[in-house]
């Protein structure tokens, strides 16, 4: 039963080897989907290319449904999976700062690594700046620590928060996803084509 490392079915050494292969698949999928191109990524905000949102939402939906089924079938212990903790204030503000970073820089950290890998100098610059951004954060951390820990809600899931079952939340999320896919395809046809 999974997670394999949690139940000690894989040793730490093998876990690191697996990490490299998982990373390779991650990088390959992103690059093959066109995520090494800032102009393609940014198209999502100007309506000329919706690849980002399609890949992102499809991946989320497939993963949510797949993991829930694996839990139902008893192939994975769903209760021990790492649920990203919710700190309402820092999640919101951090998201807003990253939103500005995305529209100005044209990348997010994973995609900038893909761009760097294929020799795009804007990807190199973004990644170096990313290092500096993390370093600056560590310098000011003592000042913003109270805000960092504000609004701690623990490892809460969105279905718990909305008081729904996981299955119903996933059902509605799938409906919304299909609606987004449809609306974006309509917008895409109306927006002037951008060649890049």
């Amino acid at each position: 039963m999974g997670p394999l490392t949690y139940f000690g079915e894989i040793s730490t050494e093998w876990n690191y080897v697996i990490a490299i292969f998982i990373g390779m698949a991650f990088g390959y999928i992103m690059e093959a989907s066109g995520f090494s191109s800032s102009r393609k990524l940014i198209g999502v905000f100007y309506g000329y290319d919706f690849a980002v949102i399609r890949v992102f939402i499809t991946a989320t939906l497939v993963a949510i449904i797949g993991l829930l089924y694996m839990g139902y079938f008893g192939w994975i212990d769903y209760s021990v999976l790492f649920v990203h903790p919710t700190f309402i204030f820092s999640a919101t503000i951090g998201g807003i700062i990253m939103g500005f970073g995305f529209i100005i820089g044209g990348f997010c950290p994973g995609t900038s690594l893909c761009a760097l890998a294929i020799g795009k100098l804007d990807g190199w610059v973004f990644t170096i700046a990313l290092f500096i951004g993390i370093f600056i954060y560590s310098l000011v951390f003592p000042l913003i620590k109270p805000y960092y820990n504000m609004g701690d809600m623990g490892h809460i899931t969105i279905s718990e928060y909305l008081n729904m079952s996981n299955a119903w939340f996933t059902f509605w999320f799938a409906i919304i996803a299909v609606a987004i896919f449809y609306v974006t395809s309509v917008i895409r046809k109306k927006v002037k084509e951008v060649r890049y």
Partner: protein
Amino acid sequence: MDFWKENKTHIYWNPYFGGFMLGLLLIATFYITGRGLGATGGTKSAVITTVDKVAPGYAKESSYYSKYYDEEKNPMNNWLVFETIGMIAGAFLSGALSGRVKFRVQHPPHISSNKRLIYASIGGLLFGFGSQFARGCTSGAALSGSAVLSLGGFITMAGIFGTAYIVAYFFRKMWIN
């Protein structure tokens, strides 16, 4: 060969196929490790290592780094560091197979490459800072968080995309005519 390359450089996967593959990869990652994917975690380890080499002892004292610093263990000896190395290799492989590997700056025709590099550096700084504050970036918080229905994952996802959509109008000159 050149003809073949010329015609493949702009051919990307169908986004729904790419999304499906990424979803399967997320499932596999959770099945094996119990956690999701990440992109800034490995970068953070590299920052900590650099700081520790440049100013020995500082990382241990710093209130932020000390959370991740362990005297017994090299900070580069971390799952996400290995994953990040793999990411670069995988992206290179995909780019090489499609003839996309080339040193260049990609920028819209009306923006000079120097301007593009300045924007990329501002964006990188903001993303680096924001990802630490939100405890993860688009991969670690938004994608991997949402995969197991984390509330914080959905909030961060809405924060990143919502903000970018709201302010896109003001930054349009950077990207479109």
